[in-house]
């Protein structure tokens, strides 16, 4: 028996509708760009293809909306791709994330980059990859999705082809990414060799039965997979690409890497480790906990030293990964929900930060922290939003950062990892220091000029939505948590279901 579904040829293609929409839309954007007219005038900024960005955002939102159709379903495409609440949550989340990235790109791309059609098409394709990572129910599909996401991002990271930093960052990202993929693939082959399956549930099944001896090959495979996924989410010591890629990539792409790539990595990490490797939790728990400590420590301590805002955010995002890894180390239904909740809060907040930085960059072309001196006087709304977002990242109450961090830390404390929660609390105190540096510069610094900046209404609209999200999650996380809990419940339920199936003769 090769592949049970293949013999029947009755795939439920409609389950992949959101992905078809994204791919089709991406193709349409490329064609549209082609027939729009010459791009020769783009560099001068007069002939803009700004609406392409809004169209791309509309496509991403459309895919997100269509995926809502499967709320509450437990379907599976060809035994490869789950369509359940977990998938739906991430489809919506990734779609909206990409939509914000596209909106934030519109003016930036018009002013600075060539070939906008391909740019937006690649963003939409990266969402297809990210969706696949969250939806995959077996390793090879997960791997292919991961590569689709990664390759889209490699190209996007070096999209500013006249900028050396962009080229360097993109190249480093791609070379290291390729090796980490190879490592991940090697890990897959070892796990397949030991367990005889690439399906998450089947692997979990085999591992559950076998508690006697720990197979060295299995452990090696596990370690290699942690390395591969650790690269994707930028956990220390697999984080080296992050600062260069962040600094070099065009700003909206930096936002996309920090939001989409990281959360897709965690979506897969969480699903894989819940469905396949949960039985071995005692073998990897303390290792992940150690990774988590190293990641928080390095990210937060090095961030203090940064002068460039993008590099600072790169290290601060590494620090945030440290907190998120706690959720894996303390893997339980509660901590999985807490992890996803914190990730959503983090992504929303981080997008708000990036939208602010992109607006500021569009005004001034600057991105050093000291360039933000006196922003409060020149753009009070921007300064307010950026401060709220930064205070949220630092974990101040009222904002998303506090509520989601508290829920995450308490879920770790509940799994006897109170010491880890304590370390995390300490490092979030450290993080306040460098976030304050930016706030201080904006409010307390002397502006270079006193003129007000023009108001970018559309970007401010997107920013207001994001900040409203930050406040909402901070003040009343319940609805978001309920949605998250519904979705993570399905991956834990899958673990139990497969147990029930295997008991049948």
């Amino acid at each position, binding site marked *: 028996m090769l592949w049970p579904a293949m013999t029947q040829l009755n795939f439920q293609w409609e389950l992949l509708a959101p992905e078809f929409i994204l791919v089709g839309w991406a193709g349409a954007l490329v064609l549209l760009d082609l027939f729009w007219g010459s791009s020769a005038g783009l560099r001068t900024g007069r002939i803009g293809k700004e609406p392409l960005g809004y169209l791309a955002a509309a496509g991403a939102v459309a895919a997100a909306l269509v995926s809502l159709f499967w709320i509450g379903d437990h379907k599976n495409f060809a035994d490869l791709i789950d369509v359940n609440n977990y998938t739906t949550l991430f489809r919506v989340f990734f779609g909206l994330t990409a939509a914000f990235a596209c909106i934030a790109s519109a003016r930036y791309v018009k002013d600075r980059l060539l070939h906008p059609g391909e740019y937006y098409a690649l963003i939409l394709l990266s969402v297809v990859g990210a969706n696949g990572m969250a939806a995959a129910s077996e390793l090879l599909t997960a791997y292919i999705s991961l590569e689709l996401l990664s390759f889209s991002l490699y190209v996007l990271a070096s999209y500013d082809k006249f900028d050396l930093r962009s080229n360097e960052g993109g190249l480093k990202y791609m*070379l*290291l990414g390729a090796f980490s993929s190879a490592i991940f693939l090697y890990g897959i082959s070892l796990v397949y060799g030991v367990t005889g399956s690439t399906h998450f549930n089947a692997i979990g099944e085999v591992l559950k039965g076998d508690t006697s001896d720990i197979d060295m090959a299995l*452990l090696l495979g596990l370690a290699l997979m942690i390395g591969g996924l650790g690269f994707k989410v930028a956990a220390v010591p697999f984080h080296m690409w992050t600062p260069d890629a962040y600094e070099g990539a065009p700003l909206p792409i930096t936002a996309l890497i920090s939001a989409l790539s990281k959360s897709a990595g965690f979506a897969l990490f969480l699903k894989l480790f819940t469905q396949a490797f949960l039985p071995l939790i005692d073998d990897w728990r303390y290792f992940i906990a150690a990774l988590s400590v190293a990641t928080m420590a390095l990210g937060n301590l*090095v961030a203090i*030293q940064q002068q460039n805002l993008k590099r600072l955010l790169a290290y601060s995002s590494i620090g945030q990964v440290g907190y998120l890894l706690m959720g894996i180390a303390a893997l339980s239904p509660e901590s999985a929900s807490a992890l996803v*909740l914190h990730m959503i809060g983090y992504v929303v907040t981080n997008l708000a930060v990036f939208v602010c930085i992109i607006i500021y960059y569009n005004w001034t072309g600057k991105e050093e922290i000291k360039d933000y001196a006196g922003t409060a006087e020149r753009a009070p709304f921007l300064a307010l939003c950026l401060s709220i977002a930064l205070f949220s990242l630092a974990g101040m109450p009222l904002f998303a950062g506090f509520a989601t961090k508290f829920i995450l830390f308490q*879920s770790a404390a509940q799994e006897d990892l109170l010491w880890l929660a304590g370390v995390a*609390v300490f490092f979030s105190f450290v993080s306040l220091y460098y976030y*304050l540096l930016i706030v201080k510069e904006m409010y307390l610094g002397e502006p270079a000029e006193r003129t007000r900046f023009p108001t970018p209404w559309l970007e401010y609209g997107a920013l207001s939505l994001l900040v409203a999200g930050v406040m909402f999650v901070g003040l009343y996380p319940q609805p978001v948590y309920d949605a998250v809990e519904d979705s993570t419940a399905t991956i834990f339920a899958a673990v139990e279901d497969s147990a029930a199936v295997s008991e049948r003769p």
Partner: protein
Amino acid sequence: MPDIREGFVWAIMLLPLGSFAVISLLALLGLTRPPRGGGAPVWNARFSGHLTIMAVFAAFLLALWSLETVIANDNARVGFGAHEWVTVGLLHVDIGITLDGLSAIMLVVVTGVSLLVQFYSQEYMRGDEGYNRYYAFMSLFTASMLGLVLASSVLQLFVFWELVGLCSYLLIGFWFHRDAARRAATKAFLVTRFGDLGFLIAILLIWSQTGTLSIAGIQEVALTGAVSSGVITWFALGVFAGAAGKSAQFPLHVWLPDAMEGPTPVSALIHAATMVAAGVYLVARFFPVFASSEEAITTVAAIGSITAIIAALLGIVATDMKRVMAYSTISQLGYMMMGLGVGGLVSAIFHLFTHAFFKSLLFLGAGSVNHATGTFDMRRMGGLRKYMPVTFATVLVASLALVGVFPFAGFWSKDEIMADAWDDRKWVFFVALAGVFLTGLYVGRMLILTFGGEYRGGEATEHGERHGEPHESPPVMLLPLLLLAVMAALAGFANINDDFSHLLEGSVPERAHALLTEGHFRLWIAFASVAAGLSGLAVAWAVYGLKVVQPESVRNFAQPLPEILENKYYLDALYEDVIVKRGLLGGAAILLSLWDRYVIDGTVNGVARVAGWTSAQLRLAQAGQAQLYATVVFLGVVGAIAGILVVNPP
């Protein structure tokens, strides 16, 4: 009067919050901005002041109603239901209101002092370009403190606790064009938040051990001994770390003297009713928990004692009038912690109550002096008794209350603390007595330098107006001074019938009553403390007034003590230079940064370079690069395998 309803209690907090929201909204819409180029604000600029005062006044009336309700309720806790906020897995967070003697007293103090400060600020901040911003932040500050006092769950309390810290950051850095103000604001925020680390960890600890976040629930757990005493001790110490940060206890007291950089009315509010009072309130709120752990309560007593003495010593050498008062606040907070440390919940809160009046009076008096002379440097004052009789008289009342001279307010509350100390831990009593002498000394010095002798100069005020002769402040500023002076003189009689004690005892669970120390009034203690205070004043009079000995020669005689004091025990240097700059920034971060930049990037880049060279030579670029890049990533994977093997020896 009928019992207050829950909605009205919430309104106590929501009224100032609403005033913050309205002012912010109007400011965002650009409706309250003073005209460009300075000058008197347009008519609607004063609206924010009026709105804040009205909101706080309404809150004050509601606070009185709450107090009345608690008294009518036989001093017992008024039961209001809890409202579910979030349920997340096993974590269940309710929000609600704690209304009992303790919170009712705090409500009255906070709203009362805040009301007078807001009223006074109308004149003090007149013409400042940040007038609206000032009132917006002050409203938020008051609202956060009220929210903190009312919270029924420790998480709810923590949220407001952090908000209080955030507001203090905004207000201390209010005049942000001054470098000192910026530094002070950041320092205050970071130092207090360092203490909050302990608090947050304590919350996580107690939640993971008991599964409750409600304050009443935690008290219950501590009293019944449902969890191990180790957990209770660690929880109490964590909470105390938070309290020590906010209430400026040694060794986290360093932010408070610098916080002077904010506008003076802000200092009055910080020092009397909000912020620093929060720490004492927190320890008092968790008193049953502290009292169940011998280690924790001893720590409170010891830290309180150390703080009371070291801060009083610093007060003797400071030359800035507001700094003297800041050290005096730290020292008095030490007294409150001492009181709590000897089981004197009643005496500590009573001292907080009386202290709120005389300390805010002292600050507002200092503001009045600054309004007249343009300086806080006492070396440039002198002789102000003649020019500012009302300010002098009110500050004198406050000073006598601070030293604890009969029958002013401070006498009664300090005496209760000392009585409790005598009955519980005698060493605390002697520390307290020494502290009273030192208090007399620095207060006497401050009074003589400021109001005695001849006028010695002055300079431009905090916000830039120039003055010739010092003059008495306008009535808008004097009225709050006079009202506070009446309270500073008479507030001590509030507990003459033990009404105050009964009110507070009702806020402690029945089972914990045995943990309270009932200090008995002893005439000799009263005499001893008054004598200590008066002798402190007398020494100050002899040195600075009569000049029996020259202050210089005393200074020389006592070396190196004065030098240590003038350098504030070198603590600032220790924290800023050694720990933060060299330790955290200099050491760890640079090391890691270098590691990241040179070792990892360097390996990659250097490897690329070597490989590039090799490729030119051998045309094996791809192979060379690939292997070496992979090495870097593989290092981590090898670590992963090693790590897993350590956990699982084969």
